[in-house]
Protein backbone atom coordinates (compact mmCIF):
# COMPACT_ATOMS: atom_id res chain seq x y z
CA UNK A 1 0.00 0.00 0.00
CA UNK A 2 2.95 2.22 0.71
CA UNK A 3 3.55 2.58 -3.03
CA UNK A 4 0.47 4.82 -3.17
CA UNK A 5 2.39 7.43 -1.20
CA UNK A 6 5.03 7.55 -3.90
CA UNK A 7 2.69 8.09 -6.82
CA UNK A 8 1.48 11.65 -6.85
CA UNK A 9 1.02 14.80 -8.77
CA UNK A 10 3.65 17.52 -9.13
CA UNK A 11 1.86 19.51 -6.45
CA UNK A 12 2.09 16.55 -4.08
CA UNK A 13 5.80 16.16 -4.70
CA UNK A 14 6.32 19.91 -4.41
CA UNK A 15 4.64 19.95 -1.00
CA UNK A 16 6.64 16.94 0.20
CA UNK A 17 9.88 18.53 -1.01
CA UNK A 18 9.02 21.75 0.80
CA UNK A 19 8.41 19.76 3.99
CA UNK A 20 11.69 17.91 3.54
CA UNK A 21 13.46 21.26 3.18
CA UNK A 22 11.96 22.49 6.48
CA UNK A 23 12.92 19.18 8.10
CA UNK A 24 16.45 19.63 6.80
CA UNK A 25 16.80 23.11 8.26
CA UNK A 26 15.25 21.97 11.53
CA UNK A 27 17.58 19.00 11.68
CA UNK A 28 20.55 21.27 11.09
CA UNK A 29 19.50 23.39 14.04
CA UNK A 30 18.99 20.24 16.07
CA UNK A 31 22.57 19.15 15.34
CA UNK A 32 23.66 22.53 16.65
CA UNK A 33 21.56 22.02 19.78
CA UNK A 34 23.06 18.56 20.15
CA UNK A 35 26.60 19.89 20.13
CA UNK A 36 26.01 23.08 22.14
CA UNK A 37 23.36 21.85 24.53
CA UNK A 38 19.86 23.11 25.29
CA UNK A 39 21.39 26.51 26.00
CA UNK A 40 20.44 27.60 22.49
CA UNK A 41 16.81 27.57 23.62
CA UNK A 42 15.09 30.18 25.77
CA UNK A 43 14.70 27.75 28.65
CA UNK A 44 16.29 28.55 31.96
CA UNK A 45 16.83 27.32 35.47
CA UNK A 46 13.40 28.66 36.42
CA UNK A 47 11.51 27.79 33.26
CA UNK A 48 13.02 24.40 32.61
CA UNK A 49 10.42 23.23 30.11
CA UNK A 50 9.47 25.35 27.15
CA UNK A 51 8.14 25.28 23.63
CA UNK A 52 9.02 21.64 22.93
CA UNK A 53 7.14 20.21 25.87
CA UNK A 54 4.25 22.59 25.26
CA UNK A 55 3.90 21.38 21.65
CA UNK A 56 4.16 17.82 22.90
CA UNK A 57 1.28 18.45 25.30
CA UNK A 58 -0.87 20.06 22.62
CA UNK A 59 -0.22 17.28 20.12
CA UNK A 60 -1.01 14.50 22.58
CA UNK A 61 -4.45 16.07 22.54
CA UNK A 62 -4.68 16.07 18.76
CA UNK A 63 -3.64 12.42 18.80
CA UNK A 64 -6.18 11.46 21.43
CA UNK A 65 -8.99 13.05 19.45
CA UNK A 66 -9.00 10.17 16.97
CA UNK A 67 -11.22 8.48 19.50
CA UNK A 68 -13.95 10.96 18.61
CA UNK A 69 -14.26 9.18 15.26
CA UNK A 70 -13.57 5.65 16.40
CA UNK A 71 -15.98 5.70 19.32
CA UNK A 72 -19.18 6.76 17.47
CA UNK A 73 -18.44 4.36 14.63
CA UNK A 74 -17.51 1.23 16.56
CA UNK A 75 -19.48 1.66 19.80
CA UNK A 76 -22.56 3.52 18.58
CA UNK A 77 -22.58 2.07 15.10
CA UNK A 78 -22.69 5.58 13.60
CA UNK A 79 -22.12 4.43 10.03
CA UNK A 80 -21.30 7.82 8.51
CA UNK A 81 -17.94 7.90 10.29
CA UNK A 82 -16.85 4.60 8.75
CA UNK A 83 -15.72 6.59 5.77
CA UNK A 84 -13.31 8.79 7.71
CA UNK A 85 -12.17 6.91 10.81
CA UNK A 86 -9.00 6.14 8.90
CA UNK A 87 -8.27 9.87 8.72
CA UNK A 88 -8.57 10.14 12.50
CA UNK A 89 -6.30 7.16 13.04
CA UNK A 90 -3.66 8.44 10.64
CA UNK A 91 -3.86 11.90 12.19
CA UNK A 92 -3.20 10.19 15.52
CA UNK A 93 -0.19 8.37 14.08
CA UNK A 94 1.40 11.56 12.81
CA UNK A 95 0.59 13.47 16.02
CA UNK A 96 2.12 10.82 18.26
CA UNK A 97 5.16 10.77 15.98
CA UNK A 98 5.56 14.48 16.61
CA UNK A 99 5.00 14.00 20.36
CA UNK A 100 7.79 11.45 20.55
CA UNK A 101 10.09 13.67 18.49
CA UNK A 102 9.36 16.63 20.74
CA UNK A 103 10.31 14.56 23.78
CA UNK A 104 13.54 13.52 22.10
CA UNK A 105 14.54 17.05 21.09
CA UNK A 106 13.81 18.20 24.62
CA UNK A 107 16.17 15.69 26.25
CA UNK A 108 19.54 16.91 27.43
CA UNK A 109 21.07 13.49 26.74
CA UNK A 110 18.92 11.98 23.97
CA UNK A 111 21.38 9.13 23.35
CA UNK A 112 20.49 7.86 26.81
CA UNK A 113 16.74 7.86 26.16
CA UNK A 114 16.67 4.07 26.40
CA UNK A 115 17.51 4.35 30.09
CA UNK A 116 13.78 4.80 30.58
CA UNK A 117 13.36 1.19 29.43
CA UNK A 118 16.61 -0.17 30.87
CA UNK A 119 15.74 1.12 34.34
CA UNK A 120 11.95 1.03 34.39
CA UNK A 121 10.59 3.26 37.12
CA UNK A 122 6.85 2.83 37.64
CA UNK A 123 6.63 5.68 40.14
CA UNK A 124 7.57 8.14 37.42
CA UNK A 125 4.69 9.37 35.29
CA UNK A 126 7.12 9.88 32.41
CA UNK A 127 7.66 6.12 32.35
CA UNK A 128 3.92 5.59 31.91
CA UNK A 129 3.73 8.32 29.33
CA UNK A 130 6.37 6.49 27.32
CA UNK A 131 4.29 3.32 27.50
CA UNK A 132 0.94 4.84 26.61
CA UNK A 133 2.30 6.99 23.78
CA UNK A 134 4.20 4.17 22.11
CA UNK A 135 1.29 1.83 22.67
CA UNK A 136 -1.09 4.29 21.09
CA UNK A 137 1.20 4.75 18.13
CA UNK A 138 1.40 1.00 17.67
CA UNK A 139 -2.37 0.54 17.97
CA UNK A 140 -3.17 3.20 15.41
CA UNK A 141 -0.55 2.08 12.92
CA UNK A 142 -1.80 -1.50 13.07
CA UNK A 143 -5.50 -0.68 13.10
CA UNK A 144 -5.27 1.99 10.43
CA UNK A 145 -3.19 -0.17 8.14
CA UNK A 146 -5.29 -3.32 8.51
CA UNK A 147 -8.60 -1.55 8.07
CA UNK A 148 -7.41 0.36 5.02
CA UNK A 149 -5.87 -2.70 3.42
CA UNK A 150 -9.06 -4.67 3.98
CA UNK A 151 -11.06 -1.84 2.48
CA UNK A 152 -8.77 -1.80 -0.53
CA UNK A 153 -9.24 -5.53 -1.07
CA UNK A 154 -12.98 -5.22 -0.42
CA UNK A 155 -12.89 -7.71 2.43
CA UNK A 156 -13.66 -7.40 6.14
CA UNK A 157 -10.68 -6.54 8.34
CA UNK A 158 -9.20 -9.54 10.20
CA UNK A 159 -11.11 -10.45 13.34
CA UNK A 160 -8.18 -9.77 15.65
CA UNK A 161 -8.30 -6.07 14.77
CA UNK A 162 -11.64 -5.60 16.54
CA UNK A 163 -10.29 -6.08 20.10
CA UNK A 164 -7.42 -3.72 19.29
CA UNK A 165 -9.93 -1.09 18.18
CA UNK A 166 -11.87 -1.44 21.43
CA UNK A 167 -8.64 -1.16 23.42
CA UNK A 168 -7.67 1.94 21.48
CA UNK A 169 -10.71 3.83 22.80
CA UNK A 170 -9.77 3.97 26.50
CA UNK A 171 -6.14 4.08 25.42
CA UNK A 172 -6.77 7.39 23.66
CA UNK A 173 -8.19 8.81 26.87
CA UNK A 174 -5.22 7.42 28.79
CA UNK A 175 -2.59 9.21 26.71
CA UNK A 176 -3.94 12.61 27.57
CA UNK A 177 -4.75 11.70 31.14
CA UNK A 178 -1.23 10.46 31.77
CA UNK A 179 0.16 13.56 30.07
CA UNK A 180 -1.90 15.73 32.41
CA UNK A 181 -0.64 13.66 35.36
CA UNK A 182 2.90 14.66 34.41
CA UNK A 183 1.99 18.14 35.56
CA UNK A 184 -0.87 17.93 38.03
CA UNK A 185 0.92 15.58 40.43
CA UNK A 186 3.72 17.99 41.22
CA UNK A 187 3.70 19.69 44.60
CA UNK A 188 4.63 23.34 44.58
CA UNK A 189 3.38 24.05 41.05
CA UNK A 190 0.08 25.68 41.92
CA UNK A 191 -1.02 26.31 38.34
CA UNK A 192 -1.07 22.63 37.45
CA UNK A 193 -2.04 21.26 40.86
CA UNK A 194 -5.68 20.79 39.97
CA UNK A 195 -7.69 17.62 39.54
CA UNK A 196 -9.44 19.19 36.58
CA UNK A 197 -6.26 19.30 34.51
CA UNK A 198 -6.79 15.92 32.83
CA UNK A 199 -10.45 16.63 31.98
CA UNK A 200 -9.46 20.08 30.76
CA UNK A 201 -6.76 18.60 28.58
CA UNK A 202 -9.25 16.13 27.13
CA UNK A 203 -11.84 18.83 26.47
CA UNK A 204 -9.37 20.99 24.59
CA UNK A 205 -8.15 17.89 22.77
CA UNK A 206 -11.64 16.99 21.61
CA UNK A 207 -12.00 20.54 20.34
CA UNK A 208 -8.60 20.99 18.72
CA UNK A 209 -8.26 17.53 17.11
CA UNK A 210 -11.64 17.34 15.35
CA UNK A 211 -11.44 21.00 14.29
CA UNK A 212 -8.15 20.23 12.61
CA UNK A 213 -9.72 17.15 11.06
CA UNK A 214 -12.58 19.25 9.63
CA UNK A 215 -10.03 21.54 8.03
CA UNK A 216 -8.21 18.53 6.62
CA UNK A 217 -11.48 17.10 5.27
CA UNK A 218 -12.24 20.38 3.52
CA UNK A 219 -8.77 20.40 1.99
CA UNK A 220 -9.09 16.76 0.88
CA UNK A 221 -12.43 17.47 -0.75
CA UNK A 222 -10.89 20.37 -2.63
CA UNK A 223 -7.70 18.65 -3.74
CA UNK A 224 -8.83 15.06 -4.38
CA UNK A 225 -11.72 13.08 -5.77
CA UNK A 226 -12.62 11.80 -2.31
CA UNK A 227 -15.36 13.62 -0.43
CA UNK A 228 -15.29 12.96 3.32
CA UNK A 229 -18.95 13.96 3.35
CA UNK A 230 -21.13 16.82 4.48
CA UNK A 231 -22.80 14.87 7.27
CA UNK A 232 -19.47 13.68 8.60
CA UNK A 233 -18.13 17.21 8.73
CA UNK A 234 -21.27 18.46 10.47
CA UNK A 235 -21.09 15.73 13.11
CA UNK A 236 -17.45 16.56 13.71
CA UNK A 237 -18.47 20.21 14.02
CA UNK A 238 -20.90 19.30 16.79
CA UNK A 239 -18.15 17.40 18.58
CA UNK A 240 -15.91 20.46 18.29
CA UNK A 241 -18.74 22.59 19.66
CA UNK A 242 -19.11 20.47 22.77
CA UNK A 243 -15.35 20.18 23.16
CA UNK A 244 -14.64 23.88 23.01
CA UNK A 245 -17.56 24.75 25.31
CA UNK A 246 -16.30 22.22 27.85
CA UNK A 247 -12.81 23.63 27.54
CA UNK A 248 -13.93 27.18 28.21
CA UNK A 249 -16.18 25.96 31.03
CA UNK A 250 -13.26 24.17 32.68
CA UNK A 251 -11.12 27.25 32.26
CA UNK A 252 -13.79 29.34 33.97
CA UNK A 253 -13.95 26.76 36.78
CA UNK A 254 -10.23 27.25 37.27
CA UNK A 255 -10.62 31.01 37.18
CA UNK A 256 -13.30 30.86 39.85
CA UNK A 257 -11.35 28.57 42.15
CA UNK A 258 -8.09 30.50 42.01
CA UNK A 259 -9.59 33.98 42.22
CA UNK A 260 -12.21 33.21 44.84
CA UNK A 261 -9.89 31.21 47.08
CA UNK A 262 -7.17 33.78 46.42
CA UNK A 263 -4.41 31.37 47.37
CA UNK A 264 -1.37 33.15 45.96
CA UNK A 265 0.41 29.97 44.91
CA UNK A 266 -2.46 29.16 42.57
CA UNK A 267 -3.63 32.65 41.67
CA UNK A 268 -0.31 34.23 40.73
CA UNK A 269 0.18 32.03 37.67
CA UNK A 270 -3.24 32.95 36.35
CA UNK A 271 -2.48 36.59 37.07
CA UNK A 272 0.82 36.31 35.23
CA UNK A 273 -0.90 34.87 32.17
CA UNK A 274 -3.86 37.24 31.97
CA UNK A 275 -2.82 40.53 33.52
CA UNK A 276 0.91 40.24 34.14
CA UNK A 277 2.80 39.88 37.42
CA UNK A 278 5.24 42.39 38.90
CA UNK A 279 5.44 44.12 35.54
CA UNK A 280 6.05 40.94 33.53
CA UNK A 281 3.52 39.68 31.05
CA UNK A 282 4.75 38.66 27.59
CA UNK A 283 1.92 36.19 27.33
CA UNK A 284 -0.93 38.56 28.26
CA UNK A 285 -1.88 39.54 24.68
CA UNK A 286 -1.59 35.92 23.60
CA UNK A 287 -3.86 34.67 26.35
CA UNK A 288 -6.56 37.24 25.58
CA UNK A 289 -6.28 36.38 21.90
CA UNK A 290 -6.79 32.76 22.86
CA UNK A 291 -9.87 33.55 24.92
CA UNK A 292 -11.39 35.71 22.20
CA UNK A 293 -10.71 33.07 19.55
CA UNK A 294 -12.38 30.41 21.64
CA UNK A 295 -15.37 32.63 22.41
CA UNK A 296 -15.74 33.62 18.75
CA UNK A 297 -15.61 29.94 17.85
CA UNK A 298 -18.34 29.13 20.36
CA UNK A 299 -20.62 31.79 18.89
CA UNK A 300 -20.02 30.52 15.35
CA UNK A 301 -20.39 26.88 16.29
CA UNK A 302 -23.42 27.02 18.57
CA UNK A 303 -25.44 28.86 15.99
CA UNK A 304 -26.66 26.26 13.43
CA UNK A 305 -26.82 28.90 10.70
CA UNK A 306 -23.12 29.58 10.87
CA UNK A 307 -22.08 26.05 11.71
CA UNK A 308 -23.79 24.63 8.64
CA UNK A 309 -22.12 27.16 6.41
CA UNK A 310 -18.87 25.41 5.56
CA UNK A 311 -16.67 28.47 4.88
CA UNK A 312 -17.79 29.95 8.21
CA UNK A 313 -17.26 26.58 9.86
CA UNK A 314 -13.71 26.61 8.52
CA UNK A 315 -13.14 29.98 10.17
CA UNK A 316 -14.59 28.67 13.43
CA UNK A 317 -12.30 25.64 13.26
CA UNK A 318 -9.26 27.86 12.72
CA UNK A 319 -10.35 29.86 15.77
CA UNK A 320 -10.67 26.70 17.85
CA UNK A 321 -7.36 25.31 16.68
CA UNK A 322 -5.32 28.43 17.28
CA UNK A 323 -7.20 29.37 20.44
CA UNK A 324 -6.48 26.01 22.04
CA UNK A 325 -2.96 26.01 20.63
CA UNK A 326 -2.14 29.27 22.41
CA UNK A 327 -3.86 28.01 25.56
CA UNK A 328 -1.86 24.78 25.68
CA UNK A 329 1.10 25.31 23.36
CA UNK A 330 2.11 28.64 24.87
CA UNK A 331 0.40 29.37 28.18
CA UNK A 332 0.04 26.00 29.85
CA UNK A 333 3.72 25.23 30.32
CA UNK A 334 5.40 28.59 30.91
CA UNK A 335 2.38 29.62 32.95
CA UNK A 336 3.17 26.84 35.39
CA UNK A 337 6.79 27.90 35.77
CA UNK A 338 6.18 31.63 36.26
CA UNK A 339 6.41 32.68 39.01
CA UNK A 340 8.98 30.15 40.19
CA UNK A 341 8.48 28.14 43.39
CA UNK A 342 10.59 30.78 45.14
CA UNK A 343 8.33 33.41 43.70
CA UNK A 344 10.78 34.95 41.28
CA UNK A 345 9.41 36.11 37.96
CA UNK A 346 11.74 34.96 35.20
CA UNK A 347 9.95 34.88 31.90
CA UNK A 348 10.40 32.52 29.02
CA UNK A 349 10.48 33.35 25.33
CA UNK A 350 11.50 30.73 22.76
CA UNK A 351 14.58 31.52 20.68
CA UNK A 352 14.79 31.43 16.89
CA UNK A 353 16.69 28.10 16.69
CA UNK A 354 14.20 26.63 19.13
CA UNK A 355 11.34 27.69 16.86
CA UNK A 356 13.14 26.32 13.79
CA UNK A 357 13.62 22.94 15.47
CA UNK A 358 9.95 23.01 16.44
CA UNK A 359 8.99 23.71 12.84
CA UNK A 360 11.22 20.84 11.75
CA UNK A 361 9.31 18.48 14.00
CA UNK A 362 5.99 19.80 12.76
CA UNK A 363 7.19 19.36 9.18
CA UNK A 364 8.08 15.73 9.97
CA UNK A 365 4.60 15.23 11.35
CA UNK A 366 3.02 16.79 8.29
CA UNK A 367 5.19 14.64 6.04
CA UNK A 368 3.95 11.50 7.78
CA UNK A 369 0.41 12.86 7.74
CA UNK A 370 0.49 13.72 4.05
CA UNK A 371 1.94 10.35 3.08
CA UNK A 372 -0.64 8.46 5.16
CA UNK A 373 -3.54 10.58 3.98
CA UNK A 374 -2.33 10.17 0.40
CA UNK A 375 -2.51 6.43 0.85
CA UNK A 376 -5.93 6.54 2.43
CA UNK A 377 -7.36 8.91 -0.14
CA UNK A 378 -5.86 6.94 -3.04
CA UNK A 379 -7.52 3.79 -1.77
CA UNK A 380 -10.84 5.62 -1.52
CA UNK A 381 -10.38 7.01 -5.05
CA UNK A 382 -9.50 3.55 -6.39
CA UNK A 383 -12.67 2.13 -4.89
CA UNK A 384 -14.98 4.81 -6.21
CA UNK A 385 -13.42 4.68 -9.68
Amino acid at each position, binding site marked *: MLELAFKGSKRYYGWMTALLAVIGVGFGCYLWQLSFGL*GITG*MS*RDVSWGFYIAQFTFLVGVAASAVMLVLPYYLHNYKAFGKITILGEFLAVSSVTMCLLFIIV*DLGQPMRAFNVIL*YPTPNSILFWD*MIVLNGYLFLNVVIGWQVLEAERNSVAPPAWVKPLIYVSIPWAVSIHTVTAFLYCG*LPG*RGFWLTAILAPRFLASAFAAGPSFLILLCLIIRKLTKFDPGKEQIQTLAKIVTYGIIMNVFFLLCEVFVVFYSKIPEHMDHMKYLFVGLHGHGVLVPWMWTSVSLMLTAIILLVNPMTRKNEPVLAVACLCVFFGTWIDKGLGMISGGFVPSPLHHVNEYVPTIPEIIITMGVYATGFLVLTALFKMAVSVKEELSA
Partner: protein
Amino acid sequence: MENSRRTFLKIAGISALGLSAKPVFNAFAVSEEHGGKKEAKVLPKKGALTAKRWALVIDTTKFKSAKDLEPIIEACHKIHNIPVFENKRHEIKWIWEEEFKHAFPDLENEHINDRIKSLPFLVLCNQCQDAPCVRACPTKATFKQEDGIVAMDFHRCIGCRFCMAACPYGSRSFNFRDPRPFIKETNKKFPTRMKGVVEKCNFCSELLAEGKQPACVEASGGALIFGDLEDPESEVRKLLKSNYTIRRKTALGTGPSIYYIV
Protein backbone atom coordinates in the same frame (compact mmCIF):
# COMPACT_ATOMS: atom_id res chain seq x y z
CA MET B 1 6.17 -14.05 -7.67
CA GLU B 2 4.29 -11.94 -5.10
CA ASN B 3 4.47 -14.74 -2.57
CA SER B 4 8.09 -15.65 -2.99
CA ARG B 5 9.15 -12.00 -2.64
CA ARG B 6 7.24 -11.83 0.59
CA THR B 7 8.89 -14.96 1.90
CA PHE B 8 12.27 -13.62 0.91
CA LEU B 9 11.68 -10.38 2.80
CA LYS B 10 10.50 -12.28 5.84
CA ILE B 11 13.56 -14.49 5.90
CA ALA B 12 15.85 -11.51 5.31
CA GLY B 13 14.19 -9.61 8.15
CA ILE B 14 14.49 -12.47 10.60
CA SER B 15 18.11 -13.06 9.63
CA ALA B 16 18.92 -9.38 10.15
CA LEU B 17 17.32 -9.51 13.56
CA GLY B 18 19.27 -12.64 14.40
CA LEU B 19 22.56 -11.10 13.32
CA SER B 20 21.94 -7.96 15.32
CA ALA B 21 21.15 -10.03 18.39
CA LYS B 22 24.49 -11.82 18.22
CA PRO B 23 26.48 -9.18 20.12
CA VAL B 24 23.95 -9.47 22.94
CA PHE B 25 24.60 -13.19 23.23
CA ASN B 26 28.31 -12.56 23.04
CA ALA B 27 28.06 -10.14 25.94
CA PHE B 28 26.25 -12.72 28.02
CA ALA B 29 28.81 -15.36 27.15
CA VAL B 30 31.68 -13.11 28.23
CA SER B 31 30.18 -12.09 31.55
CA GLU B 32 29.53 -15.73 32.42
CA GLU B 33 33.10 -16.66 31.65
CA HIS B 34 34.58 -14.15 34.03
CA GLY B 35 31.77 -13.96 36.55
CA GLY B 36 32.67 -17.10 38.48
CA LYS B 37 36.44 -16.76 38.35
CA LYS B 38 37.03 -13.43 40.08
CA GLU B 39 36.31 -12.95 43.70
CA ALA B 40 36.81 -9.25 44.05
CA LYS B 41 34.59 -7.49 46.58
CA VAL B 42 33.42 -3.97 47.23
CA LEU B 43 33.18 -2.38 50.66
CA PRO B 44 32.17 0.93 52.15
CA LYS B 45 35.06 3.14 53.08
CA LYS B 46 36.47 2.77 56.59
CA GLY B 47 36.15 5.85 58.74
CA ALA B 48 33.24 7.19 56.71
CA LEU B 49 30.62 9.24 58.53
CA THR B 50 27.32 7.40 58.50
CA ALA B 51 23.82 8.16 59.68
CA LYS B 52 20.28 6.93 59.40
CA ARG B 53 19.13 10.29 58.12
CA TRP B 54 21.47 13.22 57.62
CA ALA B 55 20.13 16.66 58.49
CA LEU B 56 21.42 20.19 58.63
CA VAL B 57 20.55 22.96 61.07
CA ILE B 58 21.22 26.51 59.89
CA ASP B 59 21.53 28.90 62.80
CA THR B 60 20.55 32.14 61.12
CA THR B 61 21.14 34.12 64.30
CA LYS B 62 24.86 33.74 63.63
CA PHE B 63 24.62 35.62 60.34
CA LYS B 64 24.64 39.39 60.02
CA SER B 65 24.84 40.05 56.29
CA ALA B 66 25.36 38.46 52.91
CA LYS B 67 29.10 38.74 53.54
CA ASP B 68 28.87 35.99 56.16
CA LEU B 69 27.35 33.61 53.64
CA GLU B 70 29.87 34.16 50.88
CA PRO B 71 32.63 31.87 52.19
CA ILE B 72 30.09 29.08 52.69
CA ILE B 73 28.75 29.30 49.14
CA GLU B 74 32.27 29.72 47.82
CA ALA B 75 33.49 26.59 49.64
CA CYS B 76 30.75 24.45 48.15
CA HIS B 77 30.92 25.79 44.65
CA LYS B 78 34.67 25.53 44.56
CA ILE B 79 35.06 21.90 45.58
CA HIS B 80 32.19 20.77 43.38
CA ASN B 81 33.42 22.51 40.23
CA ILE B 82 30.38 24.73 39.81
CA PRO B 83 30.69 26.91 36.70
CA VAL B 84 29.93 30.62 36.66
CA PHE B 85 27.83 31.75 33.70
CA GLU B 86 27.29 35.31 32.55
CA ASN B 87 23.91 34.27 31.18
CA LYS B 88 21.54 33.96 34.14
CA ARG B 89 19.38 31.45 32.25
CA HIS B 90 22.20 28.89 32.37
CA GLU B 91 23.01 29.48 36.01
CA ILE B 92 24.05 26.54 38.18
CA LYS B 93 23.94 26.69 41.95
CA TRP B 94 23.99 24.16 44.74
CA ILE B 95 23.73 26.52 47.69
CA TRP B 96 22.85 30.18 47.43
CA GLU B 97 21.17 33.05 49.26
CA GLU B 98 17.58 34.18 49.09
CA GLU B 99 15.56 36.80 50.92
CA PHE B 100 13.20 35.44 53.56
CA LYS B 101 10.14 36.12 51.38
CA HIS B 102 11.61 33.97 48.60
CA ALA B 103 13.00 31.21 50.78
CA PHE B 104 9.72 31.02 52.74
CA PRO B 105 7.06 32.41 50.38
CA ASP B 106 4.32 30.76 52.41
CA LEU B 107 5.37 32.62 55.57
CA GLU B 108 4.89 36.01 54.00
CA ASN B 109 4.66 38.75 56.61
CA GLU B 110 5.09 42.36 55.64
CA HIS B 111 5.64 43.39 59.25
CA ILE B 112 8.29 40.85 59.94
CA ASN B 113 11.11 42.16 62.12
CA ASP B 114 13.94 44.09 60.54
CA ARG B 115 16.58 41.46 61.14
CA ILE B 116 14.75 38.73 59.20
CA LYS B 117 13.63 41.18 56.52
CA SER B 118 17.19 42.19 55.70
CA LEU B 119 18.88 38.88 56.45
CA PRO B 120 19.85 36.69 53.51
CA PHE B 121 18.94 33.02 53.97
CA LEU B 122 21.00 30.11 52.75
CA VAL B 123 19.00 27.71 50.61
CA LEU B 124 20.05 24.37 49.17
CA CYS B 125 18.56 21.00 48.34
CA ASN B 126 16.33 20.01 51.25
CA GLN B 127 17.23 16.32 51.00
CA CYS B 128 13.52 15.65 51.43
CA GLN B 129 12.30 12.60 53.27
CA ASP B 130 9.67 12.03 50.58
CA ALA B 131 11.32 13.78 47.67
CA PRO B 132 9.13 14.70 44.69
CA CYS B 133 12.19 14.66 42.41
CA VAL B 134 12.89 11.01 43.27
CA ARG B 135 9.28 10.18 42.48
CA ALA B 136 9.42 12.01 39.15
CA CYS B 137 12.72 10.70 37.78
CA PRO B 138 12.00 8.17 35.01
CA THR B 139 15.39 6.40 35.22
CA LYS B 140 16.21 6.38 38.95
CA ALA B 141 19.05 8.77 38.14
CA THR B 142 17.82 10.66 41.18
CA PHE B 143 17.41 8.28 44.06
CA LYS B 144 17.45 8.13 47.83
CA GLN B 145 20.46 6.76 49.62
CA GLU B 146 20.10 4.78 52.81
CA ASP B 147 21.42 7.71 54.81
CA GLY B 148 18.59 9.93 53.59
CA ILE B 149 20.60 11.82 51.03
CA VAL B 150 18.83 12.44 47.74
CA ALA B 151 21.61 11.49 45.36
CA MET B 152 22.14 11.84 41.64
CA ASP B 153 23.70 9.48 39.13
CA PHE B 154 24.92 11.80 36.41
CA HIS B 155 25.78 8.82 34.22
CA ARG B 156 22.17 7.83 34.01
CA CYS B 157 20.41 11.20 33.80
CA ILE B 158 18.73 11.67 30.43
CA GLY B 159 18.16 15.37 30.98
CA CYS B 160 14.34 15.30 30.84
CA ARG B 161 14.18 17.87 33.66
CA PHE B 162 11.08 16.30 35.19
CA CYS B 163 12.86 16.57 38.55
CA MET B 164 13.24 20.32 38.10
CA ALA B 165 9.52 20.68 37.55
CA ALA B 166 8.89 18.45 40.55
CA CYS B 167 11.17 20.25 43.01
CA PRO B 168 9.16 22.81 45.00
CA TYR B 169 12.33 24.50 46.24
CA GLY B 170 14.03 25.38 42.95
CA SER B 171 17.06 23.45 44.14
CA ARG B 172 17.99 21.89 40.84
CA SER B 173 20.10 23.22 37.99
CA PHE B 174 20.46 21.96 34.46
CA ASN B 175 23.63 22.01 32.38
CA PHE B 176 22.36 23.98 29.42
CA ARG B 177 25.86 23.85 27.93
CA ASP B 178 29.27 22.34 28.62
CA PRO B 179 30.20 23.71 32.04
CA ARG B 180 33.94 23.05 31.78
CA PRO B 181 35.11 26.31 30.17
CA PHE B 182 33.26 28.27 32.85
CA ILE B 183 34.80 26.65 35.91
CA LYS B 184 37.23 29.15 37.35
CA GLU B 185 39.42 26.80 39.31
CA THR B 186 38.99 23.07 38.91
CA ASN B 187 39.08 20.75 41.89
CA LYS B 188 40.85 17.83 40.32
CA LYS B 189 39.58 15.33 42.85
CA PHE B 190 35.92 15.88 41.96
CA PRO B 191 34.42 15.35 38.53
CA THR B 192 32.77 18.11 36.56
CA ARG B 193 29.45 17.53 34.83
CA MET B 194 28.67 17.28 31.15
CA LYS B 195 26.05 19.22 29.21
CA GLY B 196 22.52 17.93 29.33
CA VAL B 197 22.32 16.59 32.87
CA VAL B 198 20.67 17.98 35.99
CA GLU B 199 22.63 18.55 39.18
CA LYS B 200 22.16 19.69 42.76
CA CYS B 201 23.64 19.59 46.26
CA ASN B 202 24.79 16.07 47.25
CA PHE B 203 25.29 16.85 50.97
CA CYS B 204 28.99 16.27 50.25
CA SER B 205 28.67 12.48 50.05
CA GLU B 206 32.25 12.32 48.83
CA LEU B 207 33.51 14.11 51.96
CA LEU B 208 31.36 12.08 54.34
CA ALA B 209 33.01 8.98 52.87
CA GLU B 210 36.36 10.38 53.94
CA GLY B 211 35.09 11.08 57.43
CA LYS B 212 34.77 14.80 56.84
CA GLN B 213 31.88 17.20 57.39
CA PRO B 214 30.23 18.84 54.38
CA ALA B 215 32.13 21.78 52.92
CA CYS B 216 29.46 24.35 53.82
CA VAL B 217 29.42 23.19 57.45
CA GLU B 218 33.20 23.30 57.58
CA ALA B 219 33.25 26.86 56.22
CA SER B 220 30.42 28.19 58.36
CA GLY B 221 32.32 28.64 61.59
CA GLY B 222 29.67 26.84 63.61
CA ALA B 223 26.58 28.43 62.07
CA LEU B 224 25.75 25.25 60.17
CA ILE B 225 25.44 22.05 62.17
CA PHE B 226 25.29 18.66 60.52
CA GLY B 227 24.24 15.36 62.05
CA ASP B 228 21.98 12.35 62.28
CA LEU B 229 18.33 13.25 62.71
CA GLU B 230 17.49 9.75 63.92
CA ASP B 231 20.07 9.81 66.68
CA PRO B 232 18.58 11.50 69.80
CA GLU B 233 22.11 12.21 71.07
CA SER B 234 23.26 14.01 67.95
CA GLU B 235 24.00 17.70 68.02
CA VAL B 236 21.29 18.51 65.51
CA ARG B 237 18.70 16.82 67.70
CA LYS B 238 19.89 18.75 70.73
CA LEU B 239 19.67 22.00 68.78
CA LEU B 240 16.20 21.15 67.51
CA LYS B 241 15.12 20.44 71.05
CA SER B 242 16.35 23.70 72.48
CA ASN B 243 15.53 26.08 69.61
CA TYR B 244 12.46 26.96 67.58
CA THR B 245 13.17 25.95 64.01
CA ILE B 246 11.35 26.28 60.71
CA ARG B 247 11.58 24.36 57.47
CA ARG B 248 10.65 25.38 53.94
CA LYS B 249 7.14 24.69 52.64
CA THR B 250 6.30 21.95 55.13
CA ALA B 251 2.68 22.05 53.99
CA LEU B 252 3.71 20.13 50.87
CA GLY B 253 4.63 17.08 52.96
CA THR B 254 8.06 16.61 51.45
CA GLY B 255 9.78 16.48 54.84
CA PRO B 256 12.83 18.72 54.36
CA SER B 257 16.00 17.80 56.26
CA ILE B 258 17.21 21.40 56.46
CA TYR B 259 16.15 23.25 59.61
CA TYR B 260 16.44 26.98 60.21
CA ILE B 261 16.87 28.56 63.64
CA VAL B 262 15.42 32.06 63.26
